């Protein structure tokens, strides 16, 4: 009679562990007390011992998987034994989805259970492995291709193919997930939408309002003894998405940040005049950030290499500019996009920015608002930040950080020194796609356009 080996509780606060490595292969014999596998908690690496003797009939998780404690992790019994009838969900807390129904490869005859009989039917179920694992993080060639196109690490994706193989749909789901998450990061932790390809729709956002923050799970666990820890916040939901995206961005792109500053007198002067122009002109609301974005859009027309996506095998340059801009909202960072910004006047651009930002702040940003951009601007100038290193939003190849205005000592024509207000500009580029010199030339051109913004407007 086959026995189920349950992953023991690993310390009070641990709910999940990461399975590092199986020490016993399916089909090998194992004695009670033998080390079955190695797992890692947030604090330590531990060995899991078998609680049964016999032949290892099934491994119910793959290396790299997160496995909840107190769930079935392995089945030990007699070689060739049919374990399709085992209730693997019987252990505390329910079994991991999926490979729970695994049976030995050698099982002859139509004995494989349907996923419907498996303990979890969550779709897409990882279920039904009458086929054994195809190896650590087996990834289909097609999935690899798609992953490369979308800048995703396929080995970090959960596979739903036979034996847990990562197949195309897993990568597409992860891509949709990641994109949607980035767009809706602070909007309540919605990271899988109900729209096409898993896109987050506004309905998803609305539904997420009031969703309880992720907690530490069932069975209130006593706080850890260490007094210096004020609190432990599980990295999940929005935080998880941000963490993954930012880390992936830094891991998978070659980021180089260039700093410069632009003479801000022209934009400041115009800003003063706009403000004073009254409602009739419709320009009173145009602010410095709008003007910088306008200058960026116009400058990009001459620098197609920066208005592009890096897709691994190809670099996709765009004719028009969809310009994204970071908005700090009560829910966190959002990046709405002004579509077809290259066709807009300054006033129209400013109007769109206000409209999108407003909706983002109000939590009403829709899928359209959050469409992928071709170039992003982020502005921390209002916080007195002079320069910073913006993090790229792949597959975009560049992001402009706008700093505050500082006085800069400038040598005058007669050799004297003049203090001229300058605006800090920080351009992060993906050196995989764009070299330093073109990045610098863009920044130089942008600075010149900002310095002569009144002339730029006339173009």
């Amino acid at each position: 009679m086959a026995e189920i080996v349950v992953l023991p509780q690993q310390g009070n606060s641990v709910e999940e562990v990461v399975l590092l490595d199986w020490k016993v292969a399916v089909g090998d014999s194992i004695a009670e007390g033998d080390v079955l596998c190695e797992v890692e908690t947030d604090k330590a690496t531990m060995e899991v011992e078998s609680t049964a003797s016999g032949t290892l009939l099934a491994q119910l998780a793959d290396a790299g998987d997160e496995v909840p404690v107190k769930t079935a992790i392995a089945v030990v019994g007699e070689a060739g034994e049919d374990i399709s009838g085992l209730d693997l969900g019987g252990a505390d807390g329910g079994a991991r989805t999926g490979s729970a129904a695994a049976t030995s490869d050698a099982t002859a005859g139509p004995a494989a259970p349907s996923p419907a009989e498996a303990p979890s039917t969550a779709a897409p179920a990882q279920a039904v492995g009458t086929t054994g694992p195809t190896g650590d993080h087996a990834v289909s060639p097609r999935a690899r291709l798609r992953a490369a196109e979308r800048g995703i690490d396929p080995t970090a994706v959960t596979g739903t193919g036979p034996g847990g193989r990562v197949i195309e749909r897993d990568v597409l789901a992860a891509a949709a997930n990641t994109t949607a998450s980035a767009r809706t990061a602070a909007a309540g932790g919605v990271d899988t939408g109900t729209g096409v390809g898993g896109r987050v729709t506004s309905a998803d956002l609305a539904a997420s309002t009031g969703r309880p923050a992720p907690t530490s799970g069932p069975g209130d666990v006593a706080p850890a003894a260490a007094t210096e820890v004020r609190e432990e916040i599980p990295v999940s939901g929005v935080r998880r998405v941000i963490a993954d995206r930012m880390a992936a961005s830094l891991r998978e792109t070659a980021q180089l940040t260039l700093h410069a500053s632009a003479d801000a007198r022209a934009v400041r002067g115009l800003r003063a005049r706009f403000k004073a122009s009254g409602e009739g002109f419709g320009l009173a609301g145009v602010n410095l950030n709008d003007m910088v974005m306008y200058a960026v859009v116009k400058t990009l027309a001459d620098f197609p290499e920066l208005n592009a996506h890096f897709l691994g095998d190809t670099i996709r340059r765009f004719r028009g500019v969809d310009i994204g801009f970071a908005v700090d909202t009560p829910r966190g960072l959002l990046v709405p996009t002004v579509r077809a910004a290259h066709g807009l006047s300054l006033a129209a651009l400013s109007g769109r920015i206000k409209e999108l930002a407003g909706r983002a702040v109000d939590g009403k940003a829709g899928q359209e608002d959050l469409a992928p951009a071709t170039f992003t601007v982020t502005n921390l100038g209002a916080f007195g930040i002079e320069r910073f290193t913006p993090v790229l939003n792949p597959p975009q190849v560049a992001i402009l950080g706008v700093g505050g205005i500082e006085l800069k000592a400038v040598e005058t024509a007669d050799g004297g020194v003049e203090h001229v207000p300058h605006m800090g500009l920080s351009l992060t580029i993906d050196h995989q796609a764009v070299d330093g010199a073109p990045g610098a030339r863009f920044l130089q051109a942008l600075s010149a356009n900002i310095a002569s913004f009144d002339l730029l407007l006339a173009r």
Partner: protein
Amino acid sequence: MPKSQIVDPKAVRTAQQLEIAPIPVNQYTPDIKAEKKTYGADTLTRVYYDMATIREFENMLNSIKMTGEWEGMEYTHGGPAHLSIGQESAAVGLALNLSIEDFFFGSHRSHGEILAKCYSAIAKLDESALQQTMEQYLGGDTLRVVEGDGTPKSVRDLAEDFVLYGTLAEIFARKSGFNRGLGGSMHAFFAPFGSMPNNAIVGGSADIATGSALFKRINRKPGIVVANIGDASSGCGPVWEAMMVAAMEQYQTLWDASVGGAPPIMFNFFNNFYGMGGQTAGETMGFRVLARMGAGVNPENMHAERVDGYNPLAVAEAVARKKQLLEEGRGPVLMDTITYRVSGHSPSDASSYRSKEEIEMWKDADAIASYRAYLLENKVTTKGDLEAMDERIREKLKKAMRLATDLSISPRMDGEEIAGYMFSGEKVEAFDDREPEVLMPLEDNPRVQQLAKKERFGIDASGKKVSKVKAFALRDGLFEAMIHRFYKDPTMVAYGEENRDWGGAFAVYRGLTEALPYHRLFNSSISEGAIVGSGVGYALSGGRAVVELMYNDFMGRAGDEIFNQMAKWQSMSAGVLKMPLVVRVSVGSKYGAQHSQDWSSITAHIPGLKVYFPSTPYDAKGMLNLALAGTDPVVFFESQRIYDIGEYFHEGGVPEGYYEIPEGQPDVKRAGSDVTIVTIGATLYRAIDAADTLQETYGMSAEVIDARFINPLDIEPIVESVKKTGRLVLASDAVERSSFLYSIAGTVGRVAFDYLDAPPVVVGSRNWITPAVELEDAFFPQAEWILDAIHEQIVPLPGHTVTTVQTNGELLKRYRGGV
């Protein structure tokens, strides 16, 4: 089984004795007066010249093989050289009274026959015809090597050089050889002089020659056909099959008398008393005298006769008599032409199976020395003349050897060029200009009239399938293609088992009996080897043949003819021959292990065959039209399971007019986006069922592609589909192990590797015997198997319950177990 002939129990049960007529043995008596009168001194002398030429040619090759040198010229010949030293007189005697319309088909030991037949033709043709033939052959490539050095004193002289060099260059695999070096010693031939293919398979020429004789008879072409085969080939089934086909009584009883009777075929056994080392008389056969075999074939004993092959004039005299019989339609003829191979079977033969004394006795009786003495004794020529001939022969052979061994003069083909000779790929509307012989206008044909009432698309306006009685079926598509070509090409014939009257075992030919005279559509003996082999001979002689194997399983009986003959002769002849032969092969079911196999994968493995396997009426008609318009050999598979199926895919149904399916193009029977299912044969319909379930139950869209062709096959459309779907399942009724589907799977896996979301999965029949019909569902791929394979290997189908084990472990286990 014609109704016009009654099998009367009273008659067949009557007691009686069979009387076997006497069979003549060595009845020729030399008579120099009569011989001089018949042939004249010049021809009698030329007989010596021809024999001595062959002897010297073979001695030369023997020296090259044994010592690597001849007349100061060094050469290493790695290939075969089966020499006929001792047998020259039989070959020359045989050719003496034959014209260029008379054909020789030969064996692996046929250098002598090539030279004898060609020299005989040279003596008979006028110089302008000779010159023209040489200039046109292979674009003059052979001629250019031998002409122009000033040594030939006449066109005939040049023609001799041409034949010696063309044959030798062929033996040495040179591009200017008679078959561009692609045939070699055992297959060399020169068709324009009536020297037809020589065959490295023992007895292989028997049924091919019979088909060539059928071609001559049916198309009323002049000349007889001689199958030169060895005494040991009398142990080969296809030789007997050929004799049975050649001796069918229907030529006399049922065929229109104007056709002229039986095919003019002579089975000439060059009886050298050995099959390699086995003695046919006394050891490996029981006939004692080979000519006795004729008594087992027909009341005429096949006009069998033993002839003394050591006297060329005895052979020539017999041939003259037999030729007349054959021209009168009274064949077949069997000749037991005794001779002796003084040389070994091959250079590796140490003659351990025969005594030195025996060889010495035959050397003492040497035909050439005896004939030389006979000529001198009877003052037909002088010693001086004969010595001058000997010298001339030697000089000619030195020239041939020098030219054929010089790589700068006689280069070999670049290996890559061979691909260009595998298929002829031509379109021929008709192989002759004459009006096709038919019995009624096409529109009066009862089947044609019946088909006019059928629904040519199998789905009616309401989306329901038309009943089988009303639907224009796959077998109807085949019929329309057949009758179309029958009314276009006068040379087209069809035969096999139950082809006439019955309409074919599966009613494909119903309606053809009414349309065609016997000599264009007939029943053959149950002789699968000879059915295909004669088809090969018919086709390479210039006619279009469609032969039928009632069950795929019977291909085993025609293995040599399919694999070695129909597949090889276009390329072995370097394109000199065409092979417009279609072998219709019916794939069965319900009838167990020897009547329900799909061997399309086996044919796929044989280079030189085209292999088609349609599975819809539209494709069946269009693909048979294609096969019947081409010049290449096609193995045309049909599945018995779907002869009655209507057309469900091609919009507008099966066109009434003529059309061809583009060769090698797979067809998307159903478009889809999530998984590609490729099928060959009737499994298409099970794949469609699987696709329906995928769509309805799992929301998965399957693209179903019918490969239709096995060779040639354009795999690119399949690759494109897989690039789209990322997933590939392949299914057919062929057993899984070594299925051709793996060739497609492997190719797609290689070409579209980065696009694959899962390994391509082959679903074939089990590696078992085909069981009884009640157990067939466990053997042939079912729709469920396809779903299970997708579920286990490609993408789990939520909620799917498998009924078969499609796991990798199971696959490996089956391979380990050999099942």
